[in-house]
């Protein structure tokens, strides 16, 4: 069962940059600083860079497998583990993708409910948003990649607003550098995982690139860019808030914006939250594209119906979660799966695949 993709549905390798960057940059930016600084305080920006490096390594591992196989994760699973176990593993992978997509949506709705409209109902927004996701995903991967592209380009206007709080910043907050132990940093790296999760979808994108090998360079650039942005935001945040002050802010990024006053626009956070609607759309679209593609490949049903089922499922889950505690639980659950997926599963897959590969060559 080959995952051959017709050339007209493939995209140029440079889009890998946006596909990686966009899936990593999402709703987490609004509040990752507090989580990562819990363990390592003002040194957590080092943890951001460390996790960026780890992801570079994981990306390299993924390409080592993908380039040899020229196929997507589902086929790889089948060749490595056989049909049944392989499909089971693929199914778990897809489940993780699906749940993280849903989590992103629910978390974002929570942001709206807290910051903009206190009496905002969850389901109408989820309905509209998932409809738009259907509209985009149903047109195939090119459109999904396009949404990633625009979702990366348009919010770049917001980058200067991250510089504005520097007026109130106190860079002494970052001193002394490396005041925390390595174990603290590792804890922070773990916390960072949920935020930068999403690049693992590459395992499913891969056959969709024209000359997929060339996309490796771009994925690394994408990850580098993400790391730099996150590290930059983290440094600005730590300089803006003292270490202990940060611990009481749930959404440090948004609170940071509250201090900016422009001559035509006071209170940027409302604009930023609206812009975030455009930022999280690609995250949801890629998640549902990948999940529906996976379901199609495993269960042999059309991708369109798979997509509809997944969206409906996501809609129901989103509506059932109705308070901060549940959302937080879901977030940490997804984060936990993410940690296993990244730091355990991909390296294990890498090793097993290469052992199998050698064995096959010998026989």
């Amino acid at each position, binding site marked *: 069962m080959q995952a051959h993709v017709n050339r007209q549905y493939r995209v140029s390798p440079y889009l890998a940059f946006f596909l990686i960057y966009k899936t990593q940059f999402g709703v987490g930016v609004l509040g990752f600083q507090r989580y990562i600084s819990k363990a390592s305080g003002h040194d957590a920006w080092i943890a951001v860079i460390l996790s960026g490096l780890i992801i570079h390594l994981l990306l390299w591992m993924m390409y080592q497998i993908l380039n040899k196989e020229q196929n997507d994760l589902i086929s790889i699973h089948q060749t490595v583990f056989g049909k049944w176990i392989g499909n089971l593993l693929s199914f778990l992978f897809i489940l993780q993708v699906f749940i993280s997509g849903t989590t992103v949506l629910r978390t974002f709705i929570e942001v709206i409910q807290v910051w*903009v409209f206190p009496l905002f109902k969850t389901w109408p927004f989820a309905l509209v948003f998932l409809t738009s996701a259907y509209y985009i995903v149903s047109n195939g991967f090119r459109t999904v990649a396009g949404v990633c*592209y625009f979702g990366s380009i348009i919010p770049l206007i917001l980058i200067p607003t991250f510089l504005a709080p520097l007026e109130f910043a106190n860079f002494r907050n970052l001193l002394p550098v490396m005041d925390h132990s390595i174990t603290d940093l590792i804890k922070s790296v773990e916390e960072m995982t949920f935020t930068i999760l999403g690049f693992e979808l590459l395992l499913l994108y891969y056959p969709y690139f024209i000359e997929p090998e060339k996309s490796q360079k771009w994925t690394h650039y994408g990850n580098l860019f993400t790391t730099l942005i996150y590290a930059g935001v983290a440094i600005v945040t730590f300089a803006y808030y003292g270490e202990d002050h940060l611990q009481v802010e749930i959404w440090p990024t948004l609170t940071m914006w509250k201090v900016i*006053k422009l*001559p035509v626009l*006071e209170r940027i956070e409302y604009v930023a*939250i*609206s812009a975030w609607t455009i930022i999280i759309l690609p995250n949801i679209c890629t998640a549902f594209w990948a999940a529906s593609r996976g379901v199609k490949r495993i269960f042999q049903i059309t991708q369109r119906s798979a997509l509809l089922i997944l969206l409906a499922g996501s809609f129901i889950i989103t509506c059932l979660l109705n308070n901060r505690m549940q959302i937080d639980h879901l977030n940490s659950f997804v984060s936990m799966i993410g940690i296993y997926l990244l730091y355990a599963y991909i390296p294990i897959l890498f090793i097993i695949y290469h052992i199998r590969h050698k064995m096959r060559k010998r026989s």
Partner: protein
Amino acid sequence: MIIRREGVTGIRRPRKNKQETAEPPSTWAEPFWERGDFTHTHHANATHPYWITHITSLVDTEVLHRDILPYLNKLSFPTLQEVESVLPIEEKEITDDPEKIKDLLLRGYVWIRFSDRVLEGVLARAELDKSRAVSIPQEEFSVVGPKESFVESLTTNLNMVRKRLPIKELQLQELTVGTYSKTKVAVLYIDGVANEENVNTVLQRIKAIKFYQILDSSYISQLITDNSNSIFPQMLDTERPERVAAVLAEGSIVIMVDGSPHALIAPTTLVEFFSAFEDYFINWQMASFFRIVRLFSVLFSILITPIYVAVVTYHYALIPTDLMVTLVTSRSIVPFPPILEAMILELTIELLREAGARLPTKVGQTIGIVGGIVIGTASVQAGLTSNVLLIFVALAALASFTTPVYRMGNAIRLLRFPFLLFAQLWGLIGVAIAFIFVMGHLLRLTSLGRPYLEPIYPLRLKDLRDSFIRLPFNTQSHCPAYLQTQDKQRFTPPWRQKPRDIDE
């Protein structure tokens, strides 16, 4: 063009028409005898008597009297071949095929026979091709540059294009479309430049058209467009011959329709709709500046009223303190919620535009002034609208007129309303949602199967040279990539010299 014949009354009954043609050839023209503009005359006093049959309203009488009758009268014992050879007309033939005779008669041919009992005769073209004189472009007006625009005659239009592209590679495929209108449609492209796949797509789509009447090029564009449910035009229409010549040279395909002063250009991209052809007549810095101004004015035009509604209805916190006084005082006398106020004003502007467009030019201007000044001021004074919003709406209307292509301007006019509704629903987040849908829609759109958003997505840095900005001509040595042309390079860019030192 009214041709009185039996078929006319039965024009909605094509089946009867078919039966008619199946009748014996000598009788099918019988009912035409002495009916309306169908003439069938016997010239008995010529040296050799002959019959002439034609439809007077289609035939140029001057041609008939100058180029046909004198020669026929002079002939003695002629054969049809001799008649054919002697007539100083290029398009003529001898036939006895009743279908063809009928078809040609309806296209303004004169049928010359020696006896009205046989069908065989000479058919000579004496078509009356009257059209309005070439005039100044009305829609795509430009201050500098050529002032010719297309007219309703295909021959004249083709002449204007050919004049600008006197090369043998300029190919023209003529098709006839429309079961009743039999409209001539010409597909133009430059062989060796235009992508063959694109040409074939256009030809196939035009051939596949099943429609009874093609009265304008917009019919064709609606019938062969990629997505007919989209409000965005996917084919660029222009009335400027030099634009047609320019896009042909870039590798686009142009469709011209007889009876329409607009040529269609395909494939095209969204960005191209915001470039006026005048941009090529002025220097590149200015052209780039105007293009950017146009881009911002489009964004402004679409977003300003929705943002006003969103901010005033939900996000008062966004308004700077110093502006607050102005806004609150202007709003406080208005009895309606912001959305209603905005809708009233927007619809008023649409009303004025529509009225101005339907009325003769001079009256239209008056309406504009009366509407703009009188209604605007009066409604503010009456407290029906706030003057801040009036300024926004008027500016938005003005901004929407900067779009060089009329059809795109219409799309932008319409686009504002969904944004407005979403702004009312969820404020700025609603605006973002509406934006998402528009973005998704634009990403899905194609023009002849080529991505509509090129060169923004997929990103083609080379094509960006002539998109939001226009760089100098010597940087534009390549055809746009989205056209996938066969011959990529238009000219070799001037050899770059080594930078010279000062005063050397």
